[in-house]
């Protein structure tokens, strides 16, 4: 066991932080430790929180964390913000809403940039979740970017997905893309202190009535993070969902999906690194690109050639 693994398993915040940096940076140094700690993962309940920008996701996560902390549960939070495609930099500002938690030793908050990943997540997310899990977090809350409305990838990693809506988004429910609506295990109508909340809830109910294929009724919870209302109820719904998953065997199906996605992610990363970073293959790749530009070769045949060389 590496020294770092031991420190991770003991919940040392500096070790957790450092290992997340290593996986974010795709450093090979992370791999031995990731291998070691893996056996200790799988305990935490992973909650994804997605929804449009300005729906109050950060405040909601803060309030949920407070409720979980009151029960003595350890909470890990990952807040994702977009990386600028131009500069590669990122402003990670979700934490501002959670600063009161930063002196609580039972909470670990990490801000991450998307670093080129689509779908509102970040490439190192699977690893970061595993690290927090192995470090003893009971609950892991993930806040997706929240800029677009196509952040459906969160279901590949979350046990429970919360889709957060707010009243007064124009045509509100109708304007939310179907994909985002389909991934919800629980709908949260946040900012329930603002006008229009009943309408949003009613629209959601109407929409859910149409979706007949549901094996379970999807709950709608109205919350006001600002006024700390509905948070306990939301927590209760999350617990119920977790129990439902276990009873209905969906838990295993979901986890299998998650491990598959994680494995695909690792293989993809390695394969691409292998093809594009290795010196020997790099020459072939460059030559193929030249030929493609000169119309001497088509991209499909080029891919056949390159993959052929690896599979040899």
């Amino acid at each position, binding site marked *: 066991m590496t020294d770092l693994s031991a420190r991770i398993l003991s919940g040392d915040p500096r070790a957790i932080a450092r290992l997340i940096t290593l996986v974010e940076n795709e450093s090979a140094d992370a791999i031995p430790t990731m291998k070691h700690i893996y056996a200790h993962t799988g305990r935490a309940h992973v909650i994804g929180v997605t929804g449009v920008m300005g729906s109050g996701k*950060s405040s909601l996560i803060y309030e949920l964390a407070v409720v979980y902390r009151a029960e003595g549960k350890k909470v890990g939070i990952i807040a994702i913000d977009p990386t600028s495609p131009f500069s590669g930099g990122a*402003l990670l*500002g*979700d934490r*501002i*809403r959670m600063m009161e938690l930063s002196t609580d030793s039972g909470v670990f908050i990490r801000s991450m940039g998307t670093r080129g990943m689509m779908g509102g997540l970040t490439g190192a997310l699977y690893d970061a979740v595993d690290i927090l899990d192995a470090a003893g977090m009971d609950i892991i809350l993930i806040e997706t970017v929240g800029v677009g409305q196509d952040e459906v990838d969160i279901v590949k990693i979350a046990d429970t997905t919360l889709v957060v809506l707010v009243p007064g988004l124009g045509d509100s429910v109708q304007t939310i893309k179907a994909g985002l609506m389909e991934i919800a295990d629980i709908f949260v109508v946040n900012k329930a202190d603002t006008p229009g909340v009943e309408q949003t809830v009613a629209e959601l109910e109407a929409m859910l009535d149409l979706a007949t294929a549901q094996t379970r009724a999807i709950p709608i919870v109205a919350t006001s993070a600002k006024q700390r209302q509905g948070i306990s109820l939301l927590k209760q719904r999350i617990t119920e969902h977790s129990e439902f998953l276990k009873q209905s065997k969906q838990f295993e199906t979901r986890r299998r999906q998650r491990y598959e996605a994680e494995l695909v992610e690792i293989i993809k990363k390695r394969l691409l690194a292998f093809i594009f970073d290795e010196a020997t293959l790099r020459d072939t790749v460059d030559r193929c690109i030249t030929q493609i530009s000169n119309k001497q070769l088509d991209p499909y045949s080029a891919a056949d050639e390159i993959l052929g060389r690896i599979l040899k």
Partner: protein
Amino acid sequence: MMEKEKLRQMQEKRQNWESSVYKKAVQENQERKQKFKNLSGIEIQHLFTPEDTAHLNYLEDIGFPGQFPYLRGIHPTLYRTRLWTMRQFAGFGSAEETNQRYHYLLEHGETGLSVAFDYPTLYGYDTDHPLARGEFGKCGVAVSSLKDMEILFKGIPLDKITTSMTINGPAAVIWAMYIANAENQGIRKDMIGGTIQNDILKEYIAQKSYIFPPEPSMRLIVDTFEYGSTHVPKWNTISISGYHIREAGSTAIQELAFTLGDGIEYVKAAVKRGLVLDDFAPRLSFFFNAHNDFFEEIAKYRAARRIWAREMKKLGAKKQRSLWMRFHTQTAGCSLTAQQPEINIVRVTMQALAAVLGGTQSLHTNSMDEALALPSEKAVRIALRTQQILAEESGVTDTVDPLGGSYYVEWLTDTMEQETYKYFDKVERLGGVIPAIEKGFFQKEIAESAYRYQKEVDANQRILVGVNRYQLDEEISIPILKMDEKGEERQINRLKTLRHERDNSKVDAHLKRLQKAAAGEENLMPFILDCVHSYATLGEVCDVLREVFGEYREPAIY
């Protein structure tokens, strides 16, 4: 409006001038820049003529000083009768030290006082609160109880000198202390005059010294309006401030639009409570920044007066005084440079001149060393002398609104007014001022402007003398104000003694009554006055209110 025929002739001549004279001149010698833009980003043409103001009707849009729409001034005679009030913002260290500075300023010809409080006071904490660590007396004077207020104004005739107090979150409490202090000296409430800033909206927007959420904060403010109009009639119960919005990096137009928008919001809140507009409107006052772009600043003040008069009329004001926009001006702290600090005197002079030409009612001129530290006595004196030179030597006070009728200034005034209404519409679409604050609209607008300005400076597109051109490699030695190191200890001991010696059962009883009233709907001013009279501290009163009202947390915008 010009006669059509005359205008047509002029247009013809103008076209002629453009195509022959101007074009030729530019061909021979290129202009220094492709585009000339002011600080708000408005493009400035090479020449303004009667054409640019032809759409304005003199009687309706410009008029005479002292008459609607008050563009040229709220008083018919302005500085010919009475100069503006020279009011230097001051406060540091303990109440004793600041009291000395006030006496010094008054001896040197200052005509009104202006109190700067330290951060703990601004946030409603006593000096011995853990969050006050390191902040005692740094940005202003610490006032934790009526005891400190007594020392701060020792030897100053409260019935003769007016006092402006820059206090917002806990404004009602500090004001109560000022009133209580006067009362204890036998001066009636209706004899004292001055201003409390009391403008919480711009705190959420820019300055960030807030305590409570918007709703209870607005209630406290309306409480002071109501209490003031019946009991302290000479007091300005609010100074609706653009100054801090500008310092946070806004443009002049944003300063104008956001400040007036806030003003209208306060009026609506008070009317909603059932206050009669003409009862409180005459006590609303404003506070603007004076930045570097000379004409833009002048246009801003003039536009502000006209927009306010028009809006107040729309809201149903009947009294003339309700239509008046009276304002204080301070030169732009953010425009001062740490490099070659002496040249700040020149910047301040220019900015102060703009404020005077814009018709300000009172003025603070910044000290040259403010980008380096708290101002020294000499720096403050020079700043005050700057005002005195403008007043006594420059001649700009001899006539009212000397720039009125300038094609450029009238055009710019009008343009700024139009841009302001565009912002009003935007805010309206977001649901009003408070929803826009909660959505971070203003904060984002300001952050954008600040970043754009900095980028322009860094790219040398905007020249700052001494910063990105005409730099000098010099050791900067400026006398730095040294504070009494024992001040903090003395203050903490004073608090300890106070808490021990006062009648604590009385304090508790008053605080309990305040708590009950805060949970209800009564006007809180009488309850707060009782608390401070019994020497309840600022922190104790604010804690009671914090418990009932909760605390504000800002949306994450940057």
